């Protein structure tokens, strides 16, 4: 056979074989990957809303717990997750997805608010591209815990909800510790979160009568 024709044919066959192999593996695992993503988001929602999850809960348990305790609704172009108090009548807390530019790429997070929308009860960051060990430390517990209890009202002078400043012994309640060495990420988080909180605040107010 002509050598050149053989080369082309060979390359074609090999490419066909390997791409089908890859596509096959992908097809087999597709469903699992999608469930993983769903479970991950639900875990974040449950955790930010302070709903205890058994440490060894399977993904089915998690789905059930989520279905039974959290209601999802769309409002003003935002997805809102509500958890009700034990009687099941009155809403207890809300969680809202927030996002904005980090230093290296988009950061996605979730903010939980008490029923009056007066203060923050929890925060989670679940997708980001920040540098591990530096900017990625926004997902560490100490950083997130600082936001708990933060009142959802702006400082009259600075027109911000909070600011991130270098750790110091005496600070006002609105000054949270920034991440040492990750100045840019801290600044980005401060900027986008303040903006998002402002939009959520208006949004909460308009829903108070419900």
């Amino acid at each position, binding site marked *: 056979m002509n050598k050149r024709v053989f080369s082309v044919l060979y390359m074609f066959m090999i490419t066909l074989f390997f*791409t089908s192999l*890859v596509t096959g593996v*992908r097809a087999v695992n597709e469903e699992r990957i999608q469930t993983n993503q769903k479970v991950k988001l639900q875990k974040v929602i449950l955790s930010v809303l302070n709903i205890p999850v058994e440490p060894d809960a399977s993904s089915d348990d998690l789905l059930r717990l989520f279905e039974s305790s959290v209601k999802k609704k769309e409002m003003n172009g935002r997805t809102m997750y509500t958890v009700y108090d034990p009687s099941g009548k009155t809403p207890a807390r809300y969680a809202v997805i927030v996002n904005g530019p980090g*230093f*290296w*790429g988009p950061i996605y997070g979730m903010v939980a608010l008490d029923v009056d929308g007066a203060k923050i009860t929890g925060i989670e960051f679940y997708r980001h591209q920040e540098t591990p060990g530096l900017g990625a430390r926004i997902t560490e517990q100490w950083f997130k815990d600082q936001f708990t209890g933060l009142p959802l009202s702006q400082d009259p002078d600075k027109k911000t909800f909070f*600011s991130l*400043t270098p750790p110091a012994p005496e600070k006002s309640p609105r000054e949270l510790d920034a991440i040492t060495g990750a100045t840019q990420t*801290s600044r980005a988080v401060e900027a986008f979160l303040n903006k998002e909180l402002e939009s959520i605040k208006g949004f909460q107010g308009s829903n108070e009568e419900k």
Partner: protein
Amino acid sequence: MTNIDPATLFFAAIFTNNILLTNFLGLCPYLSISRNLRSAFGLGAAVVFVMTFTAALNHLMYYQVLIPLKLDHLQYIIFIIIIAAFVQLVEMTVERYFPALYYILGIFLPLITVNCAILGASLFMVIREYTLIQSMAYGAGSGIGWMMAITAVGAIREKIQKSGMVPKGLEGPGITLLITGILSLAFMAFSGMIQIQ
């Protein structure tokens, strides 16, 4: 989705998050070609060029072809093929029309396909959801950052060679890695240039 200023991204990729000094990409050619300043500079220039354009090409390919066809799981194969094809194309063009330039860059071009920094820039661009303009700015910045690192270390190695004071076991890659560590430390200082408040 992200609205990071391309100019910021460009400078960040050069200084604060240098692709070689903080992401370790492109280390193999960096260690083997940095023996003298001249070749280090030649390779660096070729990388800048290829990285900028492959980032753009891969961006178009990913968002215009792979996503609509739902073939995004094949991105690794497609990206590396595009990079290889682009390098080949550049090599042929330069050889045919710019023989003088080919004389300087020619031998480095084939090495670029296996430079992880090039593929790395394309993968980061997808995972960070950059737009076309941001991708090009990021690609160019990363390329220039890589070139800066390799030329700096090339010059330092030349000097060290002349001093002849390096312990035997540390010669070659050993001392280069230690110098790179120090360079990386120095570049970290850039991240403090903009303070909070």
